[in-house]
């Protein structure tokens, strides 16, 4: 996995979205799906696009793939316009909820897609990479939901792309197939590929991305390493059983921001949990059953997207003509 953190300016460009916006006209008025976003992904990086339904993830992905033209802003994929990158076989994508066509075997379907590209992987290699060799001769209409997803993943890999784009790839997979899927994804990404994936599952972003981009209401509300996003809202908490009557005595300890009591247990919300735990153990050596927890990405996610919802609520959603 490539190093996270500051972007090396010399690093080759993977994906570059600059000031990209897109609105749709619907029967109920204009929907601003994406309201001006800037994202850059370095080559070889794995980035998760997180956000609730309607956040603009799929629209952003469609623009990245050249399926939708942005109203304003620019999109570049591996230094080219999206359509050119797609035609050159540099991009493989797994779109949301696409069905597979009937009356062909898995092998034939992969072979067809591979045949459309200039320099594809061998069909057998794709089957092995995704781990679906045993269903290669099955007709597509006889696959289970999880198997169909794996086949769609295989189609995305067929061109041996440099950039892999996955729009909520594990929807409909059981735990087992999900694990298998991510293993395969990792194996492929390890060849130095760039990966952008949209997901609802925060643990997937945590486990498989170097960086997470959080979207809400068409805007980016956070962009950074998953650990950093968590830290932005994340205040670690210390829980311990401490024999102390006056909570104020705990509140004045260094690194402690707030104190709360739940029965025998006190909960210290910390600005600096390292300082707080040292001080706590110095002052109260009999403190026991100590737990230090960092907030899940889930909490960070809820907090950040809730803020954005508030910000949007005060802004008039004017109809664009």
């Amino acid at each position, binding site marked *: 996995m490539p190093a996270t953190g500051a972007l090396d300016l010399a690093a080759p460009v993977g994906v570059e979205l600059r000031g990209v916006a897109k609105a749709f006209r619907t029967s109920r008025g204009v929907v601003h799906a994406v309201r001006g976003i800037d994202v850059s992904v370095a080559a070889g990086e794995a980035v998760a696009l997180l956000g609730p339904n309607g956040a603009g993830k799929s629209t952003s992905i469609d623009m990245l793939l050249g399926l939708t033209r942005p109203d304003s802003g620019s999109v570049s994929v591996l230094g080219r316009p999206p359509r050119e990158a*797609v035609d050159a076989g540099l991009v493989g994508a797994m779109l949301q909820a*696409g069905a597979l*066509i*009937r009356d*062909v075997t898995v092998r034939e379907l992969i072979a067809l897609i591979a045949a459309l590209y200039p320099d594809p992987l061998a069909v057998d290699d794709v089957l092995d990479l995704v781990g679906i060799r045993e269903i290669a001769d099955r007709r597509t209409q006889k696959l289970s939901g999880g198997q169909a997803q794996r086949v769609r993943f295989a189609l995305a890999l067929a061109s041996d792309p440099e950039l892999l784009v996955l729009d909520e790839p594990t929807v409909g997979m059981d735990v087992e197939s999900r694990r298998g899927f991510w293993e395969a994804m990792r194996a492929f990404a390890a060849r130095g590929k760039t990966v952008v994936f949209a997901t609802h599952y925060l643990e997937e972003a945590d486990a498989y991305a170097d960086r997470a981009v959080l979207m809400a209401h068409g805007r980016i509300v956070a962009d950074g390493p998953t650990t950093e996003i968590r830290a932005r809202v994340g205040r670690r908490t210390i829980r311990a059983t401490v024999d102390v009557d006056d909570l104020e005595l705990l509140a004045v300890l260094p690194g402690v921001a707030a104190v709360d009591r739940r029965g025998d247990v006190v909960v210290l919300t910390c600005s600096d949990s390292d300082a707080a735990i040292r001080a706590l153990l110095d002052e109260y050596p009999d403190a026991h059953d100590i737990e230090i927890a960092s907030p899940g990405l889930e909490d960070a996610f809820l907090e950040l997207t809730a803020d954005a919802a508030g910000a949007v609520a005060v802004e008039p959603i004017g109809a664009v003509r």
Partner: protein
Amino acid sequence: MTALAYTRFELRRTLRNVRLLVFSLGFPLILFFAIAGPGRHETDFGGTGISLPLYYMVGLVGFGAMMALISTGARIASERTDGWTRQLRITPLSSRAYLRAKVLTGYAMALLTIASLYASGVVLGVRLPADRWVEMTMLILVGLLPFAALGVFVGHLLTADTIGPATGGLVSLLALVSGTWFPLGDGFMHDVAQWLPSYWLVQASHVALGGDAWSATGWIVVAAWTAALALLARWAYRRDTERV
């Protein structure tokens, strides 16, 4: 190159769909034997100067082949609904190549219908000089052009749910007013029908009489419908692909 690969794939897939083949090839054959079997000795059917088996052979070729090409639309519509079209749009296969493959597959199915009905016609005593068979086939293939465009048009206009009833109804109606089921004579029906491309499909049987099966009107009607429907198809296709 990619268009060729996709056409091959499309054909293989179609020929493997046994139910589709049984219905689209079997249905016109059953109708043909049911109608033309009992009347196979009639040499001048309804004053047309054409034998009854030949008349219905060509009539049903028109019906079946029209169906085959309009069915292209049903395939396009369902692949749009399923998201397969989107999947293809993130490959180097161009939308044009996709449409070409669809139309070629439609024509291949039409050729199967033509071949199976010709063979059945011969069984019921249809005899024509070789050059007449060729001329008739050419006229039918040209006469199908408007329906190839119509298939693409409805495929991008309608949804997978509505396209079945819409095209089924349309083809039945066109067949009825174009003389597929009985000769139209010289009345009002005939006056209307000659402005329809499907009428000229049925008229291809008139090669048996010697001379030209299509009058100048026939060529103009077919060309005009082809041009008009091709424009509509292009409009619907553009509207659709910009949104997808």
